[in-house]
């Protein structure tokens, strides 16, 4: 256990991204990371199943991607900062993803913010 992270397991709704997680989810995170390149995005749009197979995703990972299960992906070990690149491809804004993380509708979530118009 990393002593810098002592006690972090008691913080709810928080998934620490460490080397162990990163090693287990490297292919999934690389798959999302590559979405910053247009050729990769185009290939995803034309044949997502083929691209996921080529990227080495396992069946559980493929299902999370197919369902756009944003919270499930985080719980599984996807890193948010590559996941948000996939959100762009899925035409979902970060604020919309945040609402889903919290189990709220977008409008409900924005009502909890100080400046709901800042988008």
């Amino acid at each position, binding site marked *: 256990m990393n002593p810098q*992270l002592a006690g972090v397991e008691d913080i709810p709704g*928080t998934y620490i991204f460490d080397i162990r997680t990163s090693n287990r989810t490297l292919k999934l995170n690389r798959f999302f990371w590559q979405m910053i390149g247009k050729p990769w995005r185009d290939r995803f749009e034309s044949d997502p199943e083929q691209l996921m197979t080529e990227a080495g995703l396992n069946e559980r990972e493929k299902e999370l991607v197919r369902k756009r299960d944003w919270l499930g992906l985080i719980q599984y070990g996807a890193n948010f900062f590559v996941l948000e690149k996939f959100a*762009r*491809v899925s035409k979902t804004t970060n604020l919309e993803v945040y609402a889903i993380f919290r189990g709220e509708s977008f409008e409900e979530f924005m009502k*909890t913010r*100080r400046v709901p*118009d800042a988008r």
Partner: protein
Amino acid sequence: MAKIIGCIGTSHVPTIGVAYDKGKQQDPAWKPLFDGYLPVAKWLEEQKADVLVMFYNDHCTSLFFDLYPTFAIGVGKEFQVADEGAGLRDLPTIKGNVDLQAHIAESLVNDEFDMTIFQDKPIDHGCASPLPLLWPHKPDWPGTVVPIAINVLQFPLPTPRRCWRLGQALRRAIESYPQDLRVVVVGTGGLSHQVHGERTGFNNEEWDMKFLDLLEHDPEQLTRMKHADFVRLGGAESVEQIMWLAMRGAMGPTVRKLHQNYYLATTTAMTVVLFEDGAATETVGAAKDEVAA
């Protein structure tokens, strides 16, 4: 000799870049954010800053977890601003001073900070989101940038104290550069926010204010904190504030705050603060000395 004339702490939220590009400077929801940067931009212009050293993190744009450096310094005459999936931004390439970057790299490594060197890599929003709010960019940027990337994504991260010491080493590097250059050190990220998991949307304004106060008056107290403390107090992604400790470590023991703006609109407490070297108006350190005497 080069010298550090001040330092800036600033958020690097990608939405700042998006709002900037869309021209939302006068939009009521964004005006408080953009107006908060005007005094900082004015100060940089008046002070004729030649160089900004930017402590930032790459959000898996140019660097990926298959080889993710703890500390990395960019060397290059110019850097593209990265396309992170939403297209290229209408910004000129960021300019670099290779001789200065190389000198800083040499000085840091000889000072036992074993930096990774990156070259010819695009720079992501960690650096590029606040940059146009600090410096004008038409027709071109008024100076050069030294990008220094810190791993704040994949644990183990460098400790808060290690970042502080990196800042101290940066000061030695800059003060040993023979050319007269006026350097400003910028720490990016924060303040409180969490953008993953069910705890997304967490903020803590009280802690943010305490952090800003300690940063000014007693930064070494912050270097004794653990990463878990930052996660708990400010939300998971606020741990990136260790980059502000690198910035503060490059300053002298006492600093004077010239400006601060805090705007918590949606999920991140967007903050900018400007310090220059010199006695603070109300230093905790001085008060302690009086008690000791």
